[in-house]
């Protein structure tokens, strides 16, 4: 399924060519990513795995258009990131990328709905107050939190907060959902629920890329890219893929068995 053979197929969401990223910390040059070529097509569900220092965070920042490559090329949805200004990058993030973070990163003392509405504040052209509310409520309903719209993060569980964050990521109907250790702060059951949401979204056509270091979380994805020392070491389709619905059912059965015993 390459563009060249099937010209009607959509352009890749992510196209990295010989991507390198070098940080200068003090007088030492740190080569975080040392030449990665990677293509992610629309509709994919990719896990980027690796130990700390493997360069996966740098990959994440770059895919999220928060940072530019030191060298190499990065096309996001066909657009060369290097040619965009800081403001154009901000607009691109606003329209095409949804972020989900490990620490949720919701605004404290701000309701779930207002958190979800946040990206719409920066839409150009702007969204009316009423439009913001409607879209925000729709996004919250999508993650099953319609009844928690007026709750502040402090009154929500970790799983609920992450759902709010996902709703916020989805509210502008992005091309790419980018998740950085989305289950890192969650217990295993909630983690599976969150992965279930990602799987549902992916089934509906959303492209999802997440960074994780947990192998069993990566198995909910369709493709796993393993990084080490700033290079891609492995890039395979997931075999024996976990499905959140099945895993939750299993967990439920196990709990029942424990209770019966």
């Amino acid at each position, binding site marked *: 399924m390459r563009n060249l053979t099937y010209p009607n197929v959509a352009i890749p969401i992510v196209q990295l060519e010989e991507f390198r990223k070098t940080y200068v910390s003090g007088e030492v040059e740190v080569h975080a990513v040392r030449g990665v070529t990677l293509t992610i097509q629309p509709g994919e569900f990719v896990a980027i795995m690796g130990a700390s220092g493997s360069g996966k965070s740098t990959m994440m920042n770059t895919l999220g258009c*928060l940072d530019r490559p030191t060298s190499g090329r990065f096309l996001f949805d066909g657009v060369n990131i290097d040619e965009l200004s800081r403001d154009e990058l*901000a*607009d691109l*993030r606003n329209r095409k990328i949804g972020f989900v973070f490990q620490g949720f*990163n919701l605004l404290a003392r701000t309701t779930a709905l207002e958190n979800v509405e*946040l990206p719409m504040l*920066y839409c150009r052209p702007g969204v009316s107050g009423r439009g913001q509310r409607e879209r925000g409520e729709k996004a919250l309903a999508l993650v099953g939190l319609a009844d928690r719209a007026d709750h502040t993060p402090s009154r929500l569980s970790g799983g609920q907060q992450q759902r709010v964050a996902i709703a*916020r990521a989805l509210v502008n109907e992005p091309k790419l959902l980018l998740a950085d250790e989305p289950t890192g702060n969650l217990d295993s059951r909630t983690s599976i629920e969150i992965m279930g949401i990602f799987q549902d979204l992916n089934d509906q056509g959303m492209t999802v890329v997440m960074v994780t270091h947990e192998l069993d979380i990566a198995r909910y994805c369709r493709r796993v890219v393993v990084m080490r020392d700033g290079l891609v070491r492995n890039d395979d389709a997931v075999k024996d893929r976990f499905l959140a619905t099945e895993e939750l059912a299993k967990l439920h059965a196990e709990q029942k068995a424990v209770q019966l015993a």
Partner: protein
Amino acid sequence: MLAIFKIAFRALRRNILRSFLTMLGIIVGIAAVIVGVSMGTGAKAEVDKRIASMGQNLLTVISGNMTRGGVRGGFGMAPNLTPADYEAIRKETFGVTAVSPEARTSVQVAVGNQNSFVQVSGVSAEYLTARSWPLRSGDNFSETDVRNANKVCLIGSTTAKTIFGENIDPVGQIIRIKNAPFTIVGWLIAKGSGSFGQDQDDVILVPYTSVMKRLSGDTKFRSFFVQAESPDSIADVQRQLTELLRQRHQITEGKDDDFMVRTQQETSDFFNANNRIMTILIGFFAGISLVVGGIGIMNIMLVSVTERTREIGIRLAVGARGRDVLRQFLTEAVLLSVVGGALGIGTGYWLAPLLTKFAGFPTLISNASVVVAFAVSAIIGIVFGFFPALKAARLDPIEALRYE
């Protein structure tokens, strides 16, 4: 736009005490500006009122020249305005409705066994017209009284009150001025304080001829009062008087006048010069406190930017441009300073009357000072909020998101 203010308002409400303390600097500064300017304006209004109470379109000719050599010798100099000068002014100037000389003397006045020292002013029959000074009862003395140096007088309200008691019409009574019996023919209405703060009503007016012949023996006057027929003719009358008196006093070209012709405007300017200096001085100190208040805002906004680095990171990540963040923090700073400014204006409105009540300063809050104060507070917010806001706007989203 409204949404931006709502967000800013909420951010400030979160730290209500801190926001208030930050605003306090601006509140104090703006209140100081309002009160300070109100003192200046009040003092000017008071002076203007007193000057106006002297009469309408009034020019004063004073013997001596206060401005000569920078020495204020005017009042100390021997009087040099003569009755002939007075007659000349009456006959030879145009556009003049009333002229009166003034010959002052302070003498003992007695009624029955009561006696006191009172300022006795010898004036012409046109004096009351010149000074727009109506009578409460009785009549003015006449030209004939002046010509014959008759023993008639008009009595000021304060003097009448002291001698005869309050609200007792003294017209028809006889008082002894330096042992000569004078008939009171008119009772003057109260005029209030004059330009020097003196009580204008503590006075007895008699024909100037009577003063010169019977009371003081003076042959010259200290001052003339001249009323121009309209505001437009004041300058012309001033010029005529100057030319006439220079000619009569035989002052050669290039020499200084030995008299002064002052319009009310000039008198007002003379007294208001001090007020202006006071206003500028107070404004200067108030300005300093405003700058200090502004620095307070800058300080707190810098702290706020640091505290909310992560929030800024989130906003940048979801697509806020630098200028969106800039606008957000700038709005907060401006809101702080503008609310502070409004509270300061309120405080000023509350303080100024208290100052009048307890310290006796005349105060008058002008609309212009309120508008300016409000604008200044907004400008302070913009100026001192800009640097912190710029700092926020320039944050790197990755660094900001990672900030703990």
